[in-house]
Every structure is written in C-alpha cells, then in structure tokens.
C-alpha cells in the first residue's frame, strides 16, 4: 500500500513540525490567564474636534502608546478598536488605578525657555536621560525574554522600578532648568513632517500656531535667540526636543506663527514627533469605558481548572470511541490526538492569544472534531451490514459521509464568521479558535483517519470485520 505509506510519512513530518513549533514557541496567554489590566478607552468629541477621524485616533494612539512606554510595562499592547476606541492591554499590571489616571488625561504640550546659565547642566542631564532610556529599553527586552523565569523576572522588575525612579528624577531636573511659557498645545494649529530640502534624507517637523500662539511664540523665541539657550518642547512634562534659535531672530523673534523643529530626524522619527505634537495639541478627553483587571494567581487557578477539565473531557471521549467503535475508534483517537497537537501548534503559529473562552472553544472543538469520524464509521457499519466487503465499506463510508461533513462544518463556519465580523475582543478570539479547530478537524478526520484506516486494513491480521462492527453476523 505505497500511497498510504506516502501519506503516513507526510503526517509524521507534519507532526514533527507541529511538535517543533510547540516546543519553540511560548504560548501567548490572554490577560485573563496571566493577570493584568485591560482598558478600553473611548475618544470623546469636543466643540473643537466634533468628529473622530482616523487621523485623530492615530494621534491619540501615539500619545497613549508613549505614555504607556513611560509606565515601563513590557509587552503592552495599544490597538484601535472600532471608530473611536482604543484597547490597551497591560500584562502584569495589578493596580490599574495608576495606569487609568495616566492614560485618561489629555497630552500636555508645553513650550518653555531655558534658564540662563544652565547650558552645561542641560547637556549632562540630557545625556543621563538618554542613557536611562537606553537602559529601560534593554531591561524591557530582557523582561520579555525571561517571561518564563520568575526569579530572573523579579530581579529585572526591581531594576526597572529603579530605572523608572531615576528617569522621573532626571525629568524633574530637566524641567527645573526651564521657565514655562504661556504657549501650550492648545494654541497649536498643526504639526507635520517635512524633508529639510526636497529629496533630502534629513527631515524636520513644521509647527503652526494660531494668532495668539504666534504672538507668544515670537516673544519666546526673541527672548532666547542667539543666547545658546534652547527652546524646550515638553510633552507630558517630558522634554522631547530642545532646539536653539538662531541669532538673526533676536530683533523680532520668529514671526508668522510657524516654526521648524530640526535636528537629526529621519522621515519616521519626524512623523512620530509630528503625531505626538498633534496628539498633544488635541484637546480630546479619553474616557475609560471598560476596565478589567485580573490578579495573576486568579488567572493561574483558572488555567489549571480548565486544563484539567479539558484533559478529563478528552480522556472520556477517547475511551468512549474505543469502547463503541473498536478498531476504527482507536484510529479516530489517534487522529484526535493529532488534531489536538496540530490545533495547538496552529494557535501558536498564528499568534492566537489564549484566553479562557479560547481554551473553552478548543476543548469544545475536541468534542466536535469526533463528529466527522462518527459519521464515517456509522456509514461504514451500515455498508458492512448491507454485505459489502471491508475495503468497500470503509471506502464508501468516507465517500458518503463527505457531503454531510462539509455542509455541517460550513454552517458552523458561517456562525464563526458572524462572531468574528461583529464581535469584539475575546468574542473574536473564540471565533478564531473555533474556526481553526474546524479546519484542522476536517483535515485530521478526512486525511489522517483515512490513511490510518486503509493502512490498517492492508495488514491481514487487522482485517477482521468484527473489529469494525461488533455482532456483524446477526445482520447477515
């Protein structure tokens, strides 16, 4: 039976690939399992911003992302959800109060003039801050790497905490070197990235103010022009840029309400800053419309319970199949175990975040995956009772059951599609896991069971109709 040997090898290769994926890829656990906070923020409209456009949402997303980076949470996720919402996931954050406060406010853009005689100090402080930020990035990377090592994690978290404190201090020190002006983001009309010269790889950010802002900006620039002191641009109390003003503006300041912030930007970073400024300038309040926080150990309890429940359910199904369907039942069990391995590997491969409902969907799909085999074996039995040979009976079992299997799976997929298209968050997760499960169960039931079964009946000692249909004689 050469052609079944070929399939057997193919299945074996797939199994090895799946095992490799499972061993190599850490599972992405949802916040309900690993603990953490999930916030849904709704962007509110105001008189000035009567409509939330995708640009507004992107700007707000940038601000929120930056604020979360400021919190120093590893693997934080900020996604847009719908037309006016942001979904923020903060793994490991058990105290959402702090997160909520920081995320809720409007980004504050502030312009300030450097105090006289602080040039050297500012340079030192900025260097220190750059170093601290670099260290933070390194620590966050380490934290992500050591996700499965609680001891190392503790150490890294302690370091992160220290780093955060130092950053805070350095920020305050820097802020102390500046005198805040009355010019704020509320007066900014627009900010956009632009190349310094056409086709140049160097970019700058152009900002434009309204009338009042233009006046204040002129005053501010006049004050520091040619002194070597810089104009501090603060976003949420953090210095993001400190350009100096050339001496030729000492007479009038920069007039016209437009300024160019340049200095080592590429297209990407210039655009980022423009979005940040724009975002800082947007007086759109955020409202926390949903907040779910789960303690880490609560999540672990539920993983364990669901896992045990799932395994118990799986074992019961396996026992039932052998008891009822005999040899084909045993083969279906093999296919079912392959199904579980393949599906789990697929989850990891597609980066499906495992949530509690997702695990439920997985366990459920194990029960449903049996259905295709049950349909086939019932058909095989009928054909055997009708007097067909074993080979023919198995063959027509597969052929005849196919239409039913296809139709019934397509209808379930339709429900999945509806769930995915219209649901949000974990509802979507459930739909995806169920759909992947259905796809793979079609494969394992039709291909794996078929290969094993035909391979089995190619072995003479296994070719016993009674092992396929007990009490067959009484029907003939």
């Amino acid at each position, binding site marked *: 039976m050469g052609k079944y040997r070929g399939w057997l090898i193919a299945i074996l290769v797939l199994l090895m690939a799946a095992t490799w994926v499972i061993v190599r890829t850490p599972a992405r656990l949802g916040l309900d399992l690993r603990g953490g906070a999930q916030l849904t923020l709704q962007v509110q409209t105001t008189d000035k911003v009567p409509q939330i456009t995708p640009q507004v949402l992107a700007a707000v997303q940038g601000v929120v992302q930056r604020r979360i980076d400021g919190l120093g949470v590893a693997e934080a996720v900020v996604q847009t959800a719908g037309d006016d919402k942001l979904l923020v996931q903060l793994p490991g954050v058990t105290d959402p*109060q702090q997160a909520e406060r920081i995320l809720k406010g409007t980004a504050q853009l502030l312009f300030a003039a450097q105090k006289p005689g602080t040039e050297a100090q500012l340079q030192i402080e900025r260097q220190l801050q750059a170093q601290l930020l670099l260290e933070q990035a390194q620590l966050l990377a380490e934290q992500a790497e050591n996700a499965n090592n609680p001891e190392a994690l503790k150490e890294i978290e302690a370091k992160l905490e220290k780093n955060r404190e130092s950053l805070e201090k350095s920020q305050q020190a820097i802020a102390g070197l500046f005198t805040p002006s009355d010019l704020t983001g509320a007066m900014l009309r627009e900010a956009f990235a632009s190349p310094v010269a056409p086709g140049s790889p160097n970019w700058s950010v152009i900002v434009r103010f309204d009338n009042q802002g233009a006046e204040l900006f002129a005053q501010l620039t006049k004050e520091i022009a040619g002194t070597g002191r810089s104009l501090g641009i603060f976003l949420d109390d953090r210095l993001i840029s400190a350009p100096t003003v050339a001496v030729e503006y000492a007479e009038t300041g920069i007039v016209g309400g437009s300024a160019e912030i340049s200095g080592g930007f590429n297209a990407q970073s210039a655009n980022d800053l423009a979005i940040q400024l724009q975002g800082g300038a947007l007086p759109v309040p955020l409202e926390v*419309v949903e907040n779910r926080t789960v*303690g880490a150990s*609560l999540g672990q309890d539920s993983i364990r319970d669901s896992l045990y429940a799932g395994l118990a359910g799986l074992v019961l199904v396996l026992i039932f199949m052998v008891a009822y369907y005999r040899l084909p039942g045993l083969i279906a069990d093999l296919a079912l175990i392959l199904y579980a391995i393949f599906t789990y590997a697929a989850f990891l491969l597609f980066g499906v975040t495992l949530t509690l409902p997702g695990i439920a969907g997985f366990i459920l799909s194990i029960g449903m995956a049996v*259905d295709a085999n049950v349909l086939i074996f019932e058909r095989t039995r009928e054909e055997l009772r009708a007097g067909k040979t074993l080979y023919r009976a198995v063959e027509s079992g597969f052929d005849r059951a196919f239409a039913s299997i296809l139709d019934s799976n397509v*209808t379930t997929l339709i429900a*999945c599609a509806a769930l995915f298209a219209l649901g949000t968050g974990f509802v979507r997760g459930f739909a995806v896991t169920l759909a992947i499960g259905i796809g793979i169960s079609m494969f394992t039931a039709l291909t794996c069971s078929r290969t094993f079964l035909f391979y089995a009946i190619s072995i003479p000692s296994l070719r016993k109709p009674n092992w396929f249909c007990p009490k067959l004689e009484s029907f003939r």
Partner: protein
Amino acid sequence: MSFSVNRQRSLWWGLSLVVILSGLVAMVLSWASLGSPLRLGLDFIGGTRLQFELACSATQTCSQPIDIDAVRQVLNQQGLGNSSLQIIDQYGVSIRTVPLDVDQRTRLRDTLTQKIGDFDPQKTQIETVGPTLGEEILRSGLLALLVSFIGITIYLTLRFQFDYACFALVALVHDVLLTTGVFAILGLVAGVEIDSLFIVALLTIIGFSVNDTVVIYDRVRETLKLNPDLGIKEVVDQAVVQTLGRSINTTLTTLLPLMTIFIFGGDTLRYFALALIIGFTTGAYSSIFIASTLLAWWRDRQPPRPATNTLETTPTP
C-alpha cells in the same frame, strides 16, 4: 420500521411548545420585575465589580472571616447602599456597584482595607464596564445572531431547497428560544446573569444544531433519490433512524468535555458550559423531532411533483 418520529409528532411539537412557552412566561415575568427578559450581567448594563481576597487567606493566618455587615456599612457610607455583595469562601468579597471612576474605586478599596485588612493584589479582580459599551456589546451580539441566521438560511437554500432551509431555521430559533428561556427561568429563581459569553454560546449552539439538521436532511435527500416512490413520512422516518446512532454519539462526545468544564472548570466558564449543554441537547432534539417532522408535514401537504429535485453527486461505483 419500529421507530417513527412522525407518528407522535404532535407529542414532540407539544413538548417543545410547553418548554418554550414557560421560558417566554419567565421572560415576561423577568421583564416585569427586572426590566429585561433575562437577568443582564455587567457586560450589558455596565457597572463595577470588585473582588478582593484578604492577603492572609493564602497563609491561613486570618483571625476572622470577613464580616458582611462591616462591608455593607462602608458601602452605605459611600452612598453605594444598593450594591449587591457576596462573601466568597469566608475571606473573599465580591461587590457589584454602579460604574465607579478611579477615585471612587480607590476610596472604596482604601476604606475597606482600613476596616477589614490588607487585600492580596494577586487575587484582586476589578471590572468596570461603561453603560454605552454594554449596549454596544448587546447590539453587536444580536446582530451577529441575525447575520448567521441569514447566512445559514442562504447556504442551506443553495445546498438543499428553500423549505429545508426554513425548517432548519425553525429548529434554530427553537434552540435559541429554549436556551434563553431556561436562562430566564434560572435568572428568576437562582439569580443567574448572562454575559457576553452567553451570546457566544448561542452562536455556537446555532452552528452545532444546524450540523445535526444537515446530516438528517442529507439522509432524507439521499433516501428520496434511491426510493422515489416512498412517501415523505417514511423517508424521513428512515433517515432519522439511520442517523440516530450518529446523533446520539456526537452529542455525547460533545457533552462529555462540556460536563467536565461545568463540574471542574472555573466560575467564569460554568454557565457558558451550561448554556452549551442545554443548547446542544435541544439542538439534537430539534433536529430529530422538530426539523424533520416539520419537513414531512409540509411536503405531505404539497401537491405531488413530477420529479424530485436532484442536486446530489452520484454515489460511488
């Protein structure tokens, strides 16, 4: 043919009607007392749920269990008198209030800590859902339900015929009504609330229930083609009997993991599993006793056609 679903079809129809009607009555009662046909959970109406556990519960050094009156007192002081609260395993407490903002929540937690003791942050669970978001979840859930109804009807009309699709839809509505009815009753007598997982459960039930119906219809179509002269009642009876083993076994293999989740799984999934258990059981029932008998009844009333519809592929040689 010893077993005939069609012989006692008025019994099956009556049985379903009685259960569905009692569910509807429960929904009406629930509407009168709660303002909605089912007891809606946090996900839909918004609010804040806080779950705390004393830090000492893990080390078992707590001197005394949480006093529910003390918690109630704190709530009353903060103007949250009409919140519902529950003591969990002596050292834990679950509080459900109107939506609270960060400051109100912090104040509540701090006061409780002062009065009762330190809570373990590892076991804290906080959920706040704004009322608008809840409405949105409910609306999108119902829309998903409707869309999948339509999608399934179209697919079945293409694969079978329009009347097949209609009766499959009747069976679906039957399962959805019955499951929601049971949860309306549970909401009234046991205070069971539905959350967004309930909508997920309903959609899964739809997919599964149609599975069963399709398998039987598939058999009906095949039997009709092989025996064009046989009456529709006999054809349906035969098809049901031939697929009965499969229906029972598949329902069983699906119910086994659900039962284990219901019994051993965590709190979050318990009622989700229960909804699926009820839905899958009625799904199997409605396919066998409702969708097929309705089809036989309907086709029986039609004037005889010159030829049956043939859309099926040829059987194996």
